[in-house]
């Protein structure tokens, strides 16, 4: 009980001013701002892909196999980034691929965040055997390398984009559960939670309304990292032939298709990978910026 006085509840701050403070610290970080701009651009490309892509991503142009990008000898002005082995426009496929990668990131984070928050809240709030069981299960999931476990899960569920997302969500979810649990344990005995309990808040209200909003900062950072991790893992599964299946223009799957042309047509390899790298890098830059802006320890007053 003695720590109650030492750790008073945070002073009420209005949402707008909290955001302004956050933005102040976030915008100090040039890399994070660049990452955010690139990310917004990618989202725009993904949303607008059907309208801005010069060609249908699945359309096969007979006789236009492995045409190099425009700026190289033999390029065709119709195909800015060239064509792949069966004559499809690479730029259009890359634009449509952005839809898949961002969707994968969003769905995986939504599933693993929801699952992780619920499990972490239950474990941290009730402790005892509930905590023990949940956390042991999380330990077991974490005992496997994530890509390997996702691979095996896809073997069970069958290859495909949706199954790959489910598998990746499952292996990323323990991180959220652990973070939530740790934050809940830290908050649970603070004064404001006890006050809520005294005035008669039920378990659900205490968990979701009182405690959860105060555990959000680490979860946001983890969600960003998981977003990029999910994109990487899904691309890796696609590359291994277990994620999205051809002819889906998913970037990892495109790389798998292009493997045999590695020494003949550099563009079919280089461009999809570059798209993955730029996307993941942009999100990680934002993640670093968020971590620094949300971590009170690093703020210099």
């Amino acid at each position, binding site marked *: 009980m003695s720590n109650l006085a030492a750790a008073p509840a945070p002073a009420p701050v209005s949402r707008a001013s909290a955001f302004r403070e956050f933005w102040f610290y976030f915008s100090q970080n040039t*890399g994070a701002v660049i990452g955010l701009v690139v990310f917004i651009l990618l989202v725009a490309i993904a949303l607008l892909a059907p309208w801005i892509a010069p060609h249908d991503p699945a359309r096969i142009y007979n006789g236009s196999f492995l045409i190099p990008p425009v700026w190289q000898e033999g390029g065709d002005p119709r195909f800015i980034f060239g064509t792949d082995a069966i004559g499809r426009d690479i730029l259009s496929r890359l634009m449509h691929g952005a839809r898949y990668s961002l969707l994968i990131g969003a769905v995986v984070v939504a599933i693993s965040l929801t699952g992780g928050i619920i499990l972490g809240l239950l474990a941290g709030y009730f402790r005892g055997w509930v905590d023990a069981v949940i956390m*042991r*299960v999380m*330990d*077991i999931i974490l*005992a*496997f*390398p*994530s*890509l*390997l*476990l996702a*691979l*095996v899960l896809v*073997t*069970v569920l*069958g290859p495909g984009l949706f199954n790959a997302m489910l598998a990746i969500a499952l292996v990323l979810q323990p991180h959220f559960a652990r973070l939530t649990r740790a934050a809940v344990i830290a908050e649970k005995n603070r004064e404001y939670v006890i006050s809520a309990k005294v005035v008669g808040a039920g378990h659900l209200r205490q968990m979701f309304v009182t405690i959860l909003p105060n555990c959000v900062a680490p979860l946001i950072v983890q969600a960003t990292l998981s977003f*990029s991790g999910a994109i*990487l893992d899904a*691309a*890796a599964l696609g*590359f*291994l*032939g*277990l994620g999205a299946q051809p002819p889906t223009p998913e970037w*990892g799957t495109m*790389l798998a298709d292009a*493997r045999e042309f*590695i*020494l003949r047509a*550099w563009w079919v*390899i*280089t461009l*999809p*990978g570059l798209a*993955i*790298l730029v996307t*993941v*890098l942009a999100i*990680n*830059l934002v993640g*670093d910026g968020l971590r620094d802006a949300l971590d009170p320890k690093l703020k210099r007053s």
Partner: protein
Amino acid sequence: MLRFILYRLALIIPTFIGVTLVAFLFIRILPGDPVQVLAGERGVSPERHAEVLARLGFDKPLYEQYFTYLGNVLRGDFGVSFASKRPVAQEFFSRFPATVELSLCAIILATVLGIPAGIFAAIKRGSWFDQVTMGTALVGYSMPIFWWGMLLIILFSGMLHWTPVSGRIALSYFFQPVTGFMLIDSLLSGQKGAFLSALHYLILPTIVLATIPLAVIARQTRSAMLEVLGEDYVRTARAKGLKPGRVVGVHALRNALIPVVTTIGLQVGLLMAGAILTESIFSWPGIGKWMIEAVNKRDYFVVQSGLLLIALIIMAVNLIVDVLYAVINPRIRHN
């Protein structure tokens, strides 16, 4: 110290049971009839079906099946590969040295480059060196390594012809494996040029596998170093007039390295995941490539046992790291 080790061992038991349970359930939750699934497209006659079911023990209650499985695992019996008809454990351990060799080289490269890079970035905080190093580290951390490997092949094998595309050693060299480590075996064979050839084949896979651990280690070293450099005792050491090199190299570095050592230990899981992709790009004959082939061939006993063995090895390495950590850092073992 002994008490600490025993305590850590006791903590591992539930995870061990859980991991074996996951591996056990893997075969049971495959969709469809287990015998049909394992037999593949050839199919089986009804009599043979019942016989196989009984031989695999699938006709017994689930909990009994699990205890049989656990018993087999503890005796080192991991079943037989459907593709090669050889014991899975034998297949695993014949390929394991190739993966260990590659992983060790990768983690050594990552440590040797990552720690100094992190230290200098921390000392020269905000300088161009710091910014370039940390920018590069973030790119490395974001790298789809299967693509990175292919880029390196295009550049170094395709355009410059410096390195081979795949395999472990040139086909012109042949000798019996002694240790399973190509670098050592090639030296032992006494054949001229064999060691250099093995080294040639190792370079690109090592760079690819080292990329992400290198980025993680450099970032972690920098932040650990920055934290320590802000401590009072470092300021005291400076105030005493010690040379900057001594303050950083002796006083700060020792404490900064503690979290870094843990990070290096935790890379084992990452290395195993990375090995799956790296080995598949470079046709490196290790367990990563073996697992992918097993998944593609639906060789379920190999997938099951590969998963279990890799998890057990990671658990063992993590245990060793924890104990080593307690040896370096007395605060842990007295807690």
